[in-house]
């Protein structure tokens, strides 16, 4: 019976073509990352405030804290064999962070607070590289604050609703076009900075634990539109006839995400967890920037919903040490002809490893993610220059290493 329900739920979620990636950064807990970041059905510990707030109902202790950081070391390479173009990114180390707190009010009511950075990326190419008309450097960072209210009406089942308040900043530098220069031959570029971006959303989650050995989780976070009204545009190396400054408004979606997880213990010391995530990228139709004076720009995106398949395991060696490993496959949400170097998100294989060292109420978590992104030859065909749309084509390959460190405290 249980099995058939799980299979049914999985079959509804898996589409013919499944693709997560994008600018989603799934690094929301050092413990969960060690086992493929498949945490929606793994309860116990403050990381549930993110992975599945309903799971707080199955936590141990009255209070739990978790906080951590996951430095992202990534590199993308680009080449175009026909034009003999090569380039690579020099991305600074990204630092997604998280801080969680969960609290048991009574056997029925629980509370969760989560502060985390689920979206963000910094992609930095060489200034004035061949794709500089699309991007020189782009940096997005979004902070989500998510309080959750949990009700656990039975021993087997709990639900949670969450409110999400988000704030973000975006900084984007690109050249005006493929050729414009100032009088000295310096390429003209524009920097867009939006520090006031904000938005709101909600979350719903369900946690089910029919027995000590099996648990199920469902977690949904809605789309949050980060909107900026007071963006500042600065034109550098101005040829003289463009304004020096302008203001702009823009909106960028932080797409909804739905996770369905299953965790079970074939033996007491071993936990196996599986998760399917769908990120609803289809809301990202285009990146529209409405300027005060300069002509408005539209960059078509037309991304597609994408899936991530996760499987992980945790093995308890002794009372102090737990070790973990996991694998997940993450699919690019970018359809053919929409592949641009500002978000070079590729299909990827991801291996994770991790451990927890417990010292009484305090635990130290560490994990390592190794991401190898698959080579892809594609183009972006919707860049507009005057009356034409010159295609930017080439091949991309990338990988990333993400160590993750966290501490947990329960009492």
């Amino acid at each position: 019976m249980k099995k058939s329900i799980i299979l049914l739920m999985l079959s509804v979620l898996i589409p013919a073509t499944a693709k997560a990636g994008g600018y989603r950064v799934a690094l929301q807990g050092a413990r969960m990352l060690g086992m493929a970041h498949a945490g929606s059905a793994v309860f116990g510990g403050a990381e549930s405030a993110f992975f599945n707030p309903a799971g707080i109902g199955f936590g141990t202790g009255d209070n739990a804290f978790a906080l951590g950081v996951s430095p992202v070391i990534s590199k993308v390479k680009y080449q175009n064999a026909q034009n003999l173009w090569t380039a690579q990114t020099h991305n600074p180390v990204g630092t997604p962070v998280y801080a969680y707190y969960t609290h048991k009010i009574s056997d029925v009511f629980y509370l969760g607070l989560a502060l985390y950075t689920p979206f963000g990326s910094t992609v930095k190419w060489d200034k004035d590289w061949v794709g500089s008309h699309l991007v020189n450097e782009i940096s997005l960072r979004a902070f989500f604050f998510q309080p959750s209210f949990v009700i656990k009406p039975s021993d087997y089942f709990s639900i949670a609703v969450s409110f999400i308040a988000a704030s973000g900043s975006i900084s984007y530098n690109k050249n005006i076009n493929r050729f414009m220069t100032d009088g000295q031959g310096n390429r003209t570029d524009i920097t867009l900075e939006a520090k006031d971006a904000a938005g709101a959303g909600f979350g719903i989650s369900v946690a089910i634990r029919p027995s000590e050995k099996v648990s199920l989780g469902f977690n949904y976070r809605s789309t949050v539109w980060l909107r900026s009204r007071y963006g500042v545009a600065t034109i550098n190396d101005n040829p003289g006839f463009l304004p020096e400054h302008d203001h702009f408004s823009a909106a960028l979606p932080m797409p909804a995400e739905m996770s369905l997880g299953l965790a079970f213990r074939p033996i007491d010391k071993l936990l196996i967890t599986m998760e399917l995530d769908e990120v609803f990228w289809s809301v990202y139709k285009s990146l529209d920037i409405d300027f005060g004076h300069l002509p408005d720009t539209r960059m078509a995106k037309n991304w597609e919903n994408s899936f991530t398949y996760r499987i992980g395991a945790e093995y308890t060696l002794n009372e102090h040490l737990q070790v973990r490993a996991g694998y997940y496959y993450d699919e690019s949400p970018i359809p053919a002809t929409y592949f641009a170097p500002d978000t070079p998100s590729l299909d990827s294989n991801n291996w994770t490893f991790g451990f927890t060292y417990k010292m009484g109420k305090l635990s130290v978590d560490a994990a390592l993610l190794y991401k190898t992104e698959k080579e892809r030859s594609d183009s972006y065909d919707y860049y507009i220059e005057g009356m034409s749309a010159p295609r930017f084509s080439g091949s991309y390959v990338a990988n990333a290493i993400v160590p993750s460190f966290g501490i947990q405290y329960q009492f």
Partner: protein
Amino acid sequence: MKTIYRFLALTALMLVACEPEFKNPVDPDNVDITSGSADFSVYVAVGNSLSAGYMNGTLYKSGQEYSFPKLLADRMKEAGGGEFTQPYMDDDTKDVGGMMMGNLQILPPKLVVDAGDKAVERINEQPTMTLEPHPGPYNNMGVPAAKIYHYVFNGYGNIANMASGTANPYFVRMASSPNASVFEDVLAQHPTFFTLWLGNNDVLWYATSGGAGTDQTGNTDPSTYGPNDLTDPGVFAYIYNQMLQALTAGGAKGVLATIPDVASIPYMTTVPYNPVPLDQATADALNQAYAQYNGALQQALAGGLITQDEATRRTIHFQAGKNAVVLVDEDLTDLTSLNIPSLRQATADDLLPLTAASVIGQPDPNNPNLVMGVTSPLGDEYVLTADETAKVRTVTAQYNATIRALAQQYDLAVADMAAALDELAAGLRLDDNSIYTANYFSGVETLPNLFFSLDGVHPNRKGYVILANRFIDAINAKYGSTLRKYDPGYFDTNISILPHN
């Protein structure tokens, strides 16, 4: 603890391994490019302003640096090509071109866009270049303004001939000696490869002068020609053949370029034939003013002096909306003895050169009460009539027939520039889906698709890159070489837009 150490060791190992790699990495520094059956070791460009890198109404430093022969030579260097010298203009210190003879400006500086006035004007700077010789020869033997017969004229570079107008200031600067011909300086370099693009000026000036010159077809003595005349196709063929004979005598290979149609350049196509906006009242008043002329035409028709067709063509009529300009057409039946001027309104078949734009609608300098193109007819120099266009096209077609026949005879490649410019008029679409047009500059937003410079005759930098690619295509196809092409999208137009001039 052992596990923790292992974990840290694994992290360190992976950090070192964090280098994504392509299955077939491109190495731009290690690419095999061949010259095929051609030998690019000594490349010489034989041509005129189009080979010199002339743009925006003059030859200046930042134009010359991207001449199509220079672009070609840079690619040839990857396939055994040698040094490529140009008559560089280090004395053009302001990068404005033009030329001085003593205190006299004999050639004006470059055209720029004055963003304030929204006008195309000569830059408000005095040229710094002078006639001081920098004796060549140079690999780039593009001499602005050279017609085919100038190319073989001894004395074209002699400063003493400046007064009589038979010397060329650019060749005065670059000639190896005052009495060398341009072509002698070409041959002196013993080219192993050449581009030959001559004949443009032999037809162009007739067109840009509104057909003010004479069609010299049949006259084999160029010394009797005026500057705006059409060069006899026989003279063209004779000199062209002589040149090829000499160039190929040592086994050199090369590319011959065809001559584009005069109606393919924005200089001849930008000003519409009907640019005069009128309301009904003004149209009525103008019709009243031309009633006498129209009546006289009817009398001439009744007297059998002109045909019904000509009477209809010559009848002047205005209406509310856009109206055709009134012009003088010397090919009409001469009725001036009857006090009937040779007037008619322009039709879509007439081409008005760019110079007409600043004249139409302005007061007549001789009578401020009259309006140019409306109550005061435009002179012959502002209109290339359909008959005149036909003459230019006939001569151009003969040149091109000669070029193609000689290419076959000498087994040389042809870069079909006539075809390239025809494509441009319809919108030239490149492999990356970008589009280039033969439109004249009309605002910053038109820059990405602009082929021509502000003079309406010569390409801008993007345009020269496109031409260089055409030459490369022709060379690779004929000789089996693998010269690389350029992406014009990444080249600036080199059109200066100044806040104020």
